[in-house]
Structure formats: C-alpha cells, structure tokens
C-alpha cells in the first residue's frame, strides 16, 4: 500500500485538527507509520485551521509536508478556494456542503458532497459535524480501519463522557453516498 497524504482545512472550532488526529491515531493503532502536522503561525489567530496527515503502511513517513493530497477535506468555502488545486488527479475531495454552496471546479477528481452540519443537527448535536465528515472520509477511502476509529472513540468517550460514544458512532455512519 503506498503512502496516503491527507489534508484537512476549515476554520477554528470546526474540529479540523481533531479529525486529522483521529486518522493519525487510527493509523498508529493499525501499526502503520503516520505524521500529523498542523499549520502553525500567526495566521492561526485569524481563524483558519488546517493540518496534514501522511500515512505510510510499511516504511517510515519520509516527509510530513505535502505538495499534493490524495484526500482533501474542506469544511468551509475559503478552504475549498485555497486548497482545491492540491488534490492529485484521481484523488478525493470531501466538501462540507452545509457551508459551501459553490461547486468545485476540478473535473479530474472524485468529489463527495457531505452536508456535515445538517446531518449533525439532525442527530441533535451540531458538534458532531467533524465526525460525520470523518465517517464519510474513512468509509469511502478505507485509509484507516473503521475499528481503529472505534477504538479511539471508546478511549475518548469513556467515564463521564460515555453517553457520547453512541452518538459519535451514529454520526460516523450517518452520511450515505449519493
């Protein structure tokens, strides 16, 4: 299995960095090599957030920085405009259509429309939008095993937070391909 390069972009508070971390944890639990790298610098205070995840099933990850992505997740419009060009021809673009009305311009990539905020609202918890999106990404690409995502959820939502486990698992499976 070759290296898989993922890029997650959105605004602060949309759970973009968490989405990337969950994929990285899942890769680690599946005994794969992985790196997670957030954008850092003064621009973070301006409200945009993005992170790069590189997964390498066999050998160590050579480079944590990417110039093209196999999978791009965009949670808001500025991210679509800024990063659409990054997707490799034949790669995947996951668009949060709840907040992005504009259509992607690329025709050489696979576009997945995920109304993440709307689906999260239907489940009764707007904060699960990133997990809805994560589910769309992981179930479509199998970039990491679904069971490993469950493993992180079980670790994160334990004790007093245990009530949130079922909700997050439900959010993970709520999106259906068109």
């Amino acid at each position: 299995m070759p290296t898989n390069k993922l890029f997650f972009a959105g605004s602060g508070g949309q759970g973009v960095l968490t989405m990337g971390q969950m994929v990285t944890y899942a890769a680690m639990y599946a005994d794969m090599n992985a790196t997670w790298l957030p954008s850092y610098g003064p621009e973070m205070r301006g409200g945009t957030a993005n992170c790069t995840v590189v997964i390498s099933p066999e050998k160590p990850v050579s480079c944590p920085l990417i110039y093209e992505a196999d999978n791009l997740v965009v949670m808001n419009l500025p991210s679509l405009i800024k990063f659409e060009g990054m997707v490799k021809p034949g790669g995947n673009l996951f668009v949060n259509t709840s907040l992005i009305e504009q259509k992607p311009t690329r025709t050489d990539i696979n576009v997945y429309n995920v109304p993440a905020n709307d689906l999260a609202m239907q489940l009764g918890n707007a904060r699960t939008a990133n997990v809805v999106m994560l589910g769309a990404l992981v179930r479509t690409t199998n970039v990491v095993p679904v069971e490993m995502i469950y493993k992180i959820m079980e670790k994160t939502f334990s004790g007093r937070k245990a009530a949130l486990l079922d909700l997050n698992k439900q959010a993970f499976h709520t999106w259906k391909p068109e």
Partner: protein
Amino acid sequence: MSEKVLMKGNEAFAEAVIRGGVRFYFGYPITPQSEIPEFMSRELPKWGGKFLQAESELGAINMAYGCGAAGGNGFISSSSPGIALMQEGMSFLCSAEVPVVLLNASRGGPGIGSIQPGQADYNQVTRGGGNGDYKMPVFAPASIQEAIDILYDAPALADQWRNPVMVLVDGLMGQMMEPVLMPEPKKPLESADIPTVKPWAISGSEKGTRSVVKSLRLQPEVLEEHVEHLFEKYGRMEKELVRVETENVENAEVVFVAFGTMARLVKEAMEILESQGVKAGMIRPISLWPYPYEAFDKIGKNCKAVISAELSMGQMVQDVKLGVEGRWPVRLIHRVGGMLPTSLDIVEKTRKILEEVR
C-alpha cells in the same frame, strides 16, 4: 516495552529529558517551543523536580550554570533569538565544565526573524557563539523518536563529559505529532549522592575539602593549561560522539547532505528522483559537532555532485566542502526566512545541478 503513543514534538522532548534524569528546568517562553516550559511547569513537579521561569534568557542560562555547578541535572530550552542571548553563559559553562542540556528550536533569522523552521543557527551552534575557545556537542534529530532517544541520553552524556550538550530542532518538529515509544524513566540523581557521583560539584562538602567551579583564570599560564585540557577532552569527543546516517552513498549519482527537517524533505525528493531513474544518496549528520567528515569517504565513483540542502544561505556547506576535500563538485539547495522547499522543488533544482556538472 510500553505501548506506542501519539505525541506532539515539544511535549515529547520535555518528557524524554525528564525520563533521562532532568529534575531542574529554567527557561523563558519563546515561540515555537513555549509548549516545553508549559509542559515542564505542569509535569516536572510531579516527578519531584523544580520548574523556574527566569526573568530573561540571561537569567535562565545562569540559573542552569548554578544548578549544574551544584551537581543538579538541568535543562534549558529556547529558540534562536533566545539562544543568542545565552551565548555568554554557554562559553562560561564550557570553560567551567558544567553539564547542562540545552534545546534550540531554531527559527528564521537573522534578528527576531520569523517563527517558522530555520537552520541558520548552524554556525552559531557548531562554532560557538560565545567568546573564547570552546566546543559543545550538537545533535540534530530528524524525527520525534530520534529526538526522544537523544534527549533521553543527553543528561548522562553531559555529566559524562562535564560539558553542555545541545539538541537542535525547529518549530515544525515541535508542532508535529508522530507515534513514539517512551523509554523507561532513569533513576534521578539524589542530592545525597552528588558528592560521590560528582565529586567536583559544589555540593556542600565535608570539612577540609573544597570544590571550585569557575571560568576566571587570570594567570595566562594557568588559563593556557586549562584550554589545552579542554581541547584534549574535545579531541576525545570528536572520536566518540560522531553520529551519522548514510543511505546509498556508495552508488549514488548525486549525494545530498541534510539534517533535521530538511533531511525529511530530501528523503522524499530522493524517492522521486529514484522513480525518474536518478540514483540519489544521503549523508544525514545527526551530530553537527563533531561533524561526520569521514562519512564522505564512502561516496562512490559514480558521484557527479554533492548537494548541501539547508534552511540557511549556506552554512553547513562549509563543512560539506571540508568533508568532500575537492573530490566532487559541491552545490547548495536552500530556502531561508522560515520558508521550506517542497520535495518537488528539490528534485527540480537537483536535475538542473546534474545537467550543469555533466
């Protein structure tokens, strides 16, 4: 063996050095390593250690000087402009032979510069930014695990050689997360053991014995003898502390020399070059001083050029030339100011260099 954990560089560096025996931290916050003092302030007291935020970088290094002179295992972290402010202290520490572990998360310079990755502190850390003749081992890891392993060993190494030891990273490594294995904690040095383990330290000795730790030697004969003693020690360090990783240098058409973050970018550029039919190799110095000059002797006869890839205007390239000794053309690929090349940029520039030297 403990389980793999996903850790952010800055927190992993701090945890590793604590597990390596450090119980005293002195520092002053500066981006991109402020998570280290933050982590230390929260975690070090749990290990029975002391965290102290100094009033300035000058304060921090002199507190570490005092701590080390008294026999404690101290740690300081900062970033380029802060490290620059500490240079006087480093000269004093080396002269007085006081062990301390230092971490420099180097950023774009000169001046206050930027907070993004930079390697333009190379000359400062390998040549000594303070006054006088002195040397300090400098290690530049390229992954979080490698940084952990180096920082875990660093307190013992500093004690063994009675010398400061520096670890050079950057903000990218500090912010990145990678799965890592944390080594088992070492038994820290107890106050009661200091007089036996470090008889030279000012530990409040028995009546009749006296330890002196100082850098002032007004009599020229005495100072000359002391500097010669230091350089006898540095000579042994040059033999024992060289660390380097080499890959495919024997058959390569082009050999890169790169350390830290830049080595990660070069690694991917090598994979792309290989897929295009260009045989590429790499010398990755892990110790920047002592420098692995001997690794250059492994370069084979197919080599057309040696390329120093750096985040500076060309500082390590001087050491590359010393290692190459005129045997192959030496070129430079670089970005500065906190900018990073992509692996594709490196590939493109390498192809141009190969056309030019053919």
